[in-house]
């Protein structure tokens, strides 16, 4: 018999309605309760807290900064969960590039339910509660194999529930199905069209495809939600502003909302506010830590992003230290209806160059 996710108590409150202080008063006891829960139900978690945070005492009321955290990379090497095997209803895996190990995240019914409910609250804040015609900027094959929930497939399936008649705008070879997309738009009378895709897919499959074909398409009715790593765009020296700008030039798309999240923290989803900063809803929060001392840094100072969430009961993922660098840009902005803390992701910590003895051998390259 599984416990209720503490986040379920927050579902009646609008996700961005609480000023930071009021939010913390609600959130902190839930994070503490989750820490205590996982200490009891996940022996590996208890072992880590004892070994790494020996002074942490769940009985004493700790601040959010004092709560133990786990590095996200740990889920790549270990199956950490706080439920018996027969309670596992879904295992999420991270995308990860070829050759990398992927994280395995175990969900039970309760965690999956609350995660889905939270996602509904968050998305409805931006698109309202009616289901919109939806264009998915990916190929249909990405969700065909429903037994393997890749991060990309799971993300698309998660968002697809907010649209109806989803149209996959890319062909199997990832080329843009422009005639199909135009037809779909012509047939739809809705004043708003929802678009969703992973950032690089939107860039490559839509923006670059239209640019190189010298075509444009009218998506001025569109509301684009996109997510995913910025690495490939950074490599092409494309900033967030340039991304939106060039998207606007070929599609007339004005409403673009990025979000940040990771499979290791289900439901920990951070949508952009109107200032294009990522905004923490009432279910979750972030702390920025110095990458070397691991101490929290003041707002405005870049560091490692730690994510906190009141959702996960099935695995100890309520407090995770990511490998992303970020900076807190502000709290309770007076001009924003969205209250609470907001931040910016600056990029990924570079991969350690393996300098063991054995790296004089470079990959075999046949020179002809």
């Amino acid at each position, binding site marked *: 018999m599984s416990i209720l996710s503490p986040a379920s108590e927050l579902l009646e409150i609008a996700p961005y309605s609480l000023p930071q202080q009021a939010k913390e008063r609600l959130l902190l006891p839930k994070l503490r309760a989750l820490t205590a829960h996982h200490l009891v139900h996940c022996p590996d978690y208890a072992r880590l807290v004892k070994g*790494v945070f020996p002074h942490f005492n769940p009985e004493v009321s700790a601040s959010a900064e004092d709560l133990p955290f786990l590095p996200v990379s740990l889920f790549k090497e*270990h199956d950490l969960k706080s439920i018996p095997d027969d309670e596992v209803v879904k295992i999420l895996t991270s995308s990860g590039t070829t050759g990398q190990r992927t994280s395995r995240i175990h969900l039970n019914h309760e965690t999956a339910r609350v995660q889905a409910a939270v996602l509904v609250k968050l998305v409805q804040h931006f698109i309202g509660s009616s289901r919109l015609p939806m264009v998915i900027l990916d190929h249909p094959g990405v969700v065909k194999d429903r037994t393997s929930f890749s991060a990309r497939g799971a993300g698309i399936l998660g968002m697809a529930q907010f649209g109806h008649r989803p149209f996959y705008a890319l062909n199997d070879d990832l080329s843009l199905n422009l005639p199909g997309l135009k037809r779909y738009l012509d047939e739809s009378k809705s004043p708003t069209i929802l678009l969703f895709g992973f950032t690089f897919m939107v860039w490559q499959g839509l923006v670059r495809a239209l640019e190189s074909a010298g075509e444009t398409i009218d998506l001025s009715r569109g509301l684009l939600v996109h997510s995913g790593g910025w690495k490939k765009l950074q490599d092409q020296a494309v900033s967030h502003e340039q991304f939106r700008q060039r998207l606007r030039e070929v599609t007339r798309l004005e409403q673009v909302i990025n979000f940040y999240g990771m499979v290791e923290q289900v439901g920990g989803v951070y949508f952009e506010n109107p200032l294009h900063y990522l905004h923490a809803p009432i279910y979750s929060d972030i702390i920025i830590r110095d990458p070397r001392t691991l101490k929290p840094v003041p707002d405005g100072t870049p560091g490692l992003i730690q994510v906190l969430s009141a959702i996960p009961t099935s695995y100890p993922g309520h407090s995770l230290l990511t490998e992303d660098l970020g900076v807190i840009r502000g709290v309770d902005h007076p001009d924003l209806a969205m209250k609470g803390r907001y931040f910016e992701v600056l990029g990924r910590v570079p991969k*350690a160059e393996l*300098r*063991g003895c*054995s790296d*004089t051998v470079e990959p075999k390259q046949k*020179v002809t």
Partner: protein
Amino acid sequence: MDTSIEISSFLSTRVKVLAPFGGLPLSSFLQSPPDSAEPFADDRIEAIAALSDRLMKDPSIRKDPANVAVAFWLRRANLNRFKTSHKARIHAAPEVVWTPAGRVFHVAPSNVDTLFLYSWALAYLCGNANIVRLSKQQPAQVQALLEAFSRTAESAPCLLTQNRFVTYEHDEEISGVFSAWCDHRIVWGGNATVEALRKVPLNPHASERSFASKFSYSMVKAAAVLALAPPDLHQLASACFNDLFWFDQAACSSPQVMFWVGSTADTEAASRLLLDALQSVADRRGYVADLALASTRLSAAFDLCLRSEATVDLSRSALVTVQLLGNESLSKEICGGGYLRMIHLETSLGILSLLDRGDQTITHFGFERSELLQLAPGFGSRGVDRLIPLGEALAFDPIWDGFDLVEDCMRRISIRI
């Protein structure tokens, strides 16, 4: 078919000569006979000493302590020490005549940026012609060393005619040409490089010395640390800093595990003292852990805490320490970047069960000579071939992994009447 023309064309397209500037093209260099130099000839000592002088004066070289160390090692007084010990070698066995091996092909590692220069200098001192293969990406400090070599060679013809520092992508064909050319092949760079080079046929007359991946330790007597006056503790911490943080703790001889020998109470107090002192040395020297490695070592510590009975200390920015409490087998993987595992032992004999043939150096502090002499026979045929004072982990020694690099680079002619 003229094979030399064929070789010269692919060498010039695939191999880049990094130093010296000028001199014969590589294909002609390969065909010229080696100098008939004597081991430890004065002109060679002078040429290396001139390189040392140039390095010592170069402010860009001086910025990097590892470069200063190699410059210092190449100074005239140190080279003359080798000459003196060679005289002792001759004196001990007058019926043996030593000549250079001839041609030496070095494959340098990329985890210890300066090692290629030590390897080259010994072989060159012994009177050999050399080809030194460096990896494709040279950090700025290696480029500065090569630049200094080229400048020195402008006024030292023997440097120019007898040596080539080259780079090329891993390429068996090219390594094959150099391996056929040489009389002795020295392969640094650990297991993967050794395995890759072993596949490349070596001139049947040539010998080979290869250096596999190694793992190293520190061993500290807790009571000796507790007995230190503050300035001496600071000095010990500075010595420890060099061992741990040069080359991002990725050299074969960089300590990965520190054994604390003594009572539980002593080792707890002593390790705290030394690690805190180490942190202040790091602060004073402005050491900042590499960002990527800071993340890697954190993951490694959490991971180890799940695999072994351990406590992790994240309170110092210079290094993450993991105290291992159980008797699980010790992983010999290297993380680097300030990641130190610690093991408490009642006596130094406790290390014996943890050693294997991949082990190389133990830097020690606080032990009597007699205790170390008693300990060493227990290593048996397993690893560890250096027991040296703390602070000297990365000091280059011509006896490496238990092999004498100088004698390797010479040929012995036995004379019996």
